[in-house]
Structure formats: structure tokens, C-alpha cells
């Protein structure tokens, strides 16, 4: 899978143009629509989108014009939806959609607070899962800062982000926040909490993470063992 991805992405601009000329405009437009819808649907569920999945589920035989399709889809999302495709993991090429509309002061138009919090939680859980189920506190904050969620700054939807993540999510057993032994000054790390391991939302993350490349083979094996099994010991 990685080899195919590489091939698609190392096509030069002129090569892509040539590939484009061999296709009917309607075919390419269709792929752009499919990608736009795919990105919107995934993002609505707050599941980060993997480039590998995009190639496999949407682009398929159009890999030779991948860069053009993604460019047009990104443009559509900006112009029509005011959304921007943002990479949250440069190594594994994972994306989310972020609104580029001016931020609001007041309450009225926000998404349901619960949905927003769940979204934040999902991003953190996904990140943790990819890091082998645990990550240093500093790594999590760094990742969130790239999404314009800064633990040091009061967020208009989440409020006190640090408190939400280290207290509320922990109290609700979605996350564990543990001190790393033998660290001075004390450092902390996040792990999946017991509730995260049992809730439905976890299945959504697992479904997408289950397609992660071979280096996660161990995890994939664990997933198959029991239906809807939790991560046990996570």
C-alpha cells in the first residue's frame, strides 16, 4: 500500500497533467465530488482521515491524478464550505477539516458542546492509539496547538482546555493521566481510559486505525480476537 501511495505522490506536475488529459473532465469531477463528500462525512464523525484510506476508498484507479483531485477538493471545501484540510500527523499523513471562518465571541452558533468535546476527545484518543496507546502530555499539547487548541489559552468552546482534558476526561474515564516515574520535574503521560475502551465511539476509531500500516500488525491481531473487545490493559 505504501508503495502505491508513493507512486501516486511522486508524479511530477507535468506527469499529472498528462494523466489528466487522458481522462474525461466528467470523470475527474466525479472523483472530486466523491472526495469532498468522503472528507465531509468522515470529519462529521470526528474521525481523522488517513491519506491511505483516501487513496484506497475514493481515488482508486485515479491515483495518477491524485494531486489534482485533492487540490480541487481542497479548493471546493474552502470556497463552498469555508473548511480547510489540515494535516495533524505529517508522518502518517492524517487530516482533519478545520473551519477557516472567523471565530465567534458568542454562544449561539456553536456546535452542541457535547459534540465538540467528543470531537476533541476523539482526536486525542486517535493520537494516543497511534503512539502505541500512550503519549507524553507535552506531545498531546503540541498536537492540539496545531489545531489551534492551546491548553494555556481559554478556548471559546472548550473553555479551560487543560482542565477539560486532564480533569473532566480523566474523571469520565476516557483518559488516564499518569505521572511518568522517575521524572523530575514530574512529567505526565496520557493513556486511553477504561471507558474509552468500552464505548461505541471507540469502535469508530478502531475501524479507522485497523487499517493502519503493517507496523501496527500487533494491534490489528488484538482487534480480531473478540468482537467489540476492549483494548484490555490499555
Amino acid at each position, binding site marked *: 500500500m505504501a508503495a502505491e501511495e508513493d507512486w501516486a505522490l511522486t508524479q511530477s506536475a507535468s506527469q499529472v497533467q498528462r494523466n489528466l488529459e487522458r481522462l474525461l473532465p466528467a470523470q475527474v469531477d466525479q472523483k472530486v465530488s466523491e472526495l469532498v463528500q468522503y472528507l465531509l462525512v468522515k470529519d*462529521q464523525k470526528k474521525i481523522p482521515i488517513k491519506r491511505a484510506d483516501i487513496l484506497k476508498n475514493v481515488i482508486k484507479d485515479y491515483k495518477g491524478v491524485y494531486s489534482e483531485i485533492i487540490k480541487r477538493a481542497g479548493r471546493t471545501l474552502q470556497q*463552498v464550505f*469555508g473548511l480547510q484540510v489540515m494535516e495533524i500527523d505529517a508522518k502518517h499523513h492524517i487530516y482533519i477539516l478545520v473551519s477557516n471562518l*472567523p471565530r*465567534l465571541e458568542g454562544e449561539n452558533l456553536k456546535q452542541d458542546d457535547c459534540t465538540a468535546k467528543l470531537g476533541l476527545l476523539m482526536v486525542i484518543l486517535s493520537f494516543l492509539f497511534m503512539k502505541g496507546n500512550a503519549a507524553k502530555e507535552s506531545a498531546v499539547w503540541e498536537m492540539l496547538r496545531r489545531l489551534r487548541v492551546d491548553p494555556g489559552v481559554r478556548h471559546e468552546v472548550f473553555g479551560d482546555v487543560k482542565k477539560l482534558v486532564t480533569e473532566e476526561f480523566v474523571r469520565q474515564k476516557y483518559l488516564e493521566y499518569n505521572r511518568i516515574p522517575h521524572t523530575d520535574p514530574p512529567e505526565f503521560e496520557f493513556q486511553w481510559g477504561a471507558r474509552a475502551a468500552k464505548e461505541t465511539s471507540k469502535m*469508530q476509531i478502531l475501524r479507522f486505525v485497523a487499517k493502519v500500516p503493517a507496523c501496527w500488525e500487533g494491534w490489528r491481531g488484538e482487534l480480531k480476537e473478540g*468482537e467489540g473487545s476492549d483494548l484490555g490493559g490499555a
Partner: protein
Amino acid sequence: MATQMTDGHRRFLQVLMSHGIMEGSVARTLHRDCCEIHKVYYAHDKLDDFINVVNIHLQPFFMQIRKGMSEDDGRTYYALVNLAETEITKMASDYTENELELFRKTMDVIIVSENGFASSTNILNLADQLKTKKMKKKEAEQVLQNLVQDKWLSERDGEYTLHTRCIMEMEQYILSNYQDLVRKCNICHSLAIQSQVCETCGIGMHLPCAGKYFKAQTEPHCPHCNEFWPHEIPEINRPDSQLPSSAPRERRGTSSSGTRRR
């Protein structure tokens, strides 16, 4: 009428998407707020025009903000739907093959049924007979829960029917796939999943449509064959039903060409 997308339109679209489906009065408030925040021209009765601007830009991508009616309460709802007829596209990336098969089979039962509902027992039996991969009871129950949460199905007293959002999203798909098996409302001519049916001539009506049509009639008769209408007439107490007749009441799309009096 301006046809440019503004941030007001974009914000409306983003919020609508995050809700999945939005009731008429909420949409009207959202319209007002979006216009206010982004200093876009606003007229309180021009929501449909506002939405048309968005739809013009969505058209090349086979998407549309559609207006529909809830079969439960007769209220107007707005949802962003995809216009592809041939697949259940929006669901395909969220559900596995056997889950989709279960959903399709459940939809079969719902559409063919008298009252537009499938019992959970029935659905669990279907789960056991799936061709792609059998599903155990517990798994099927979870899938049903997901389908309800995602607003493809709605549940009432252990029975399942199609959610308003699902009907709006899949109307074309259902009409072309089920053809003569589906019922259309005799009053508004749109797809009817839940309906009251005349026992003599077989025509059907949405419950809210029946409520409006037979309102205050002491002896309701079938509009088609004139036989006594044997069902309890639902009460319509919604403020929406008192809208002046000039308000377009189309089921499909938001074009204002031609209004229909109900």
C-alpha cells in the same frame, strides 16, 4: 438576488452539517444569525433564496440542501443530502458490508410493512440470516443503536422506522429501487413510509397530511373513493400549520416556482 457565496452562507452550511438535520424554526434563526454576523443582506422570509445560493454552488458536487417534512410531526426540516441515486454513499464509509446489508434488509421490511415499522425481533432475525456475514444479537443491537444515533433509523417502543433525515437523503434511491412497492401520499405526493391507508381503495396519506386534510371534519371520507376513513385522525397543533398559504410547502427542493395549497 446575489449568487455569491459569503461567509454567512458558509457558516450556515457548516452548522447545518454538524446538526445533520435541522428543524425549520432553528434554520430560520440560524439564517438570521449568519447574516447578522457576516453582514450579509437579510430578509426574514428569504431563507429559501439564501439556501438556493448555497445549492447553486453545491450542484457540481451532487449535493443539495433539501427541505422535507417529518412524518411524525409534520414540521419542516432541512438537511444536506447527496443526490447520487445509485448507492447509499453517505453510509458506505461508516458501516461495514454486513452492517449495510442489515440496514438494507431492515429498509425492505419497513417499506413493505403496513405501518412503516420493523420490530427489533424481526431485525435481529434478519441479522442472523445475512449473506455477507452473520451478526450476533449483541452486535446487531449495537448496529441498530449506531443507525439511530446517525439518524438513519428512528426508534419508538422497540420498533424502527426510517428517520426523517434518511428519507430526505434517500428519497430518490428508495423511489427508484422500490418503485411500486412504496407508497406515495395522496395529499402531497411525496414518499410515505408511515401512512394511513384507505382499506377500500388502497390510497395512503402521511399522518400529518391526514391531520391537515381532515381537520375538523366530523366524518372523514377518503378523498379518492369517498368511503369512510377508518383511522384516527392525528391532531395537528403546530404553529407551522397556521402559516399563510403563500408559504411554499414543497416536499422536494426549495425552488419557489409554484406553490401548493394543502
